[in-house]
């Protein structure tokens, strides 16, 4: 039973490709919601701004963690602005982003300790078993039929939902890839030092 839940914790970060996605469990509704989100977000490429800064600032409480940067960057190549990272997924197209994240998931040791920036949409899930909430940046592939996510943690986790954007909001995560062990399983995640809410037009697709 514990194993099933630990697999569920990885559900969003696992690759939804070739049948290696999340296992069917009590959180399958969350996963299905994510999938439909991916499909809808991909089909509305030129849609209006998902969430404006003003709306977000108004909605969120004053306890927003410092790491939750609500400044929409003027350029999409943040890494090139004098603060280099090892893997800048924001300058890649969707096919490559998807492939690199897949590679990170199946071959994580090659990426541990490397800094990266990734754009995607925000989502989270809660597991009763561990009484923990997990946060993800989710990226769909070029055909928008598959999505995969990377788990991230902010330095000051804050409280959900007050300190986090709404599910489906486009975000940019910047941090270093690390891992942690839970119920005997090793999981990869981004030790994020910054989360930025993006406007739709700012995402590099």
């Amino acid at each position: 039973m514990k194993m099933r839940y630990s697999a569920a914790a990885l559900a969003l970060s696992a690759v939804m490709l070739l049948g290696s996605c999340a296992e069917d469990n009590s959180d399958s509704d969350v996963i299905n919601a994510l999938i439909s989100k991916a499909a809808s977000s991909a089909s509305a490429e030129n849609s209006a701004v998902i969430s404006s800064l003003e709306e977000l600032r108004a909605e969120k409480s004053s306890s927003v963690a410092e790491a939750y940067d609500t400044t929409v960057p003027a350029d999409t190549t943040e890494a090139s602005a004098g603060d280099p990272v090892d893997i800048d997924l924001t300058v890649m197209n969707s096919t490559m982003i998807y492939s690199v994240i897949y590679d990170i998931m199946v071959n994580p040791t090659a990426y541990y300790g490397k800094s990266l920036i990734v754009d995607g949409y925000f989502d989270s899930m809660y597991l009763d078993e561990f009484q923990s909430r997990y946060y993800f940046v989710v990226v769909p592939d070029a055909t928008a039929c598959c999505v995969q996510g990377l788990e991230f943690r902010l330095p000051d986790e804050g409280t959900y939902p007050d300190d986090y954007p709404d599910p489906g909001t486009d975000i940019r995560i910047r941090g270093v890839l690390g891992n942690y062990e839970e119920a005997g399983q090793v999981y990869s995640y981004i030790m994020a030092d910054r989360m930025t809410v993006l406007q739709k037009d700012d995402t590099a697709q």
Partner: protein
Amino acid sequence: MGDFAAKLQLYFSYPFVWYALIVGLLIALCSSLLGVTLVLKRFSYIGDGLSHVAFGAMAIAALVGLTNNVYIVMPITVISAILLLRTGQNAKINGDAAIAMISVGALALGYMLMNLFPSSANISGDVCTTLFGSTSILTLKESDVIICIVMSVVVIAAFLLFYNKIFAVTFDENFMKATGIKANVYNLIIAIITALIIVLAMNLVGSLLISALIIFPALSAMRLFRSFRSVVICSACVSVTCAGLGIFTSIMAGTPVGSTIVVTDIIVFFLFCGLSLIIRRKNV
């Protein structure tokens, strides 16, 4: 231009991009070799039929819980290929009807199994990946590449080794039988090679687009060349070039890999049709 070069350098710094290119070119080469024979034997649609069988077999593999589905997909596809190519002429159900029957039957069975016993919460994603390839080619592991290289060597060696016999069985099976050569054995070899190529190509373009990989290069080559040898060589060149261009374009432009390769094949086909018209007019 500098950006393009930088992006190119960045993308090709990832090993999986090289894996995709190697596997893509090998699959394109193998499929084009046999494509000429299949088109000339009027078995163009067997690729489609077998790929649907492979789709059904993949669903069974997922149901059984195999991590490497090749162990189930390969034997089922090979057996289906043998049944279709060997017994096609003598069976009560004719070749094209048998292909259609197996094709849609396997597709329906596969989809039903995927829905009844989902291996993941993302059924539509699984189906999409299997049917259209999605980004499978860019998610290959080193072991997949080794399997592909070994299988490709087997296919190419078999084709070169039995080139004369394949030529004979392609054009005049009855004459071959009359001269005492067992045509059925070579039909069996063609069936097995076809199944191998189908299973390999599912990673590249997905099961719905495999036929394009087999048919288009052969048809393009036939627009310009007449002899079997020249058509096979041209078909191989066209197929490898289109696969390389398609993979390169999809990596750089972010388009789906399988459909980009097929679109490149279609463009080359029409180019060759135009060239053929020009050459014919000049010769008149």
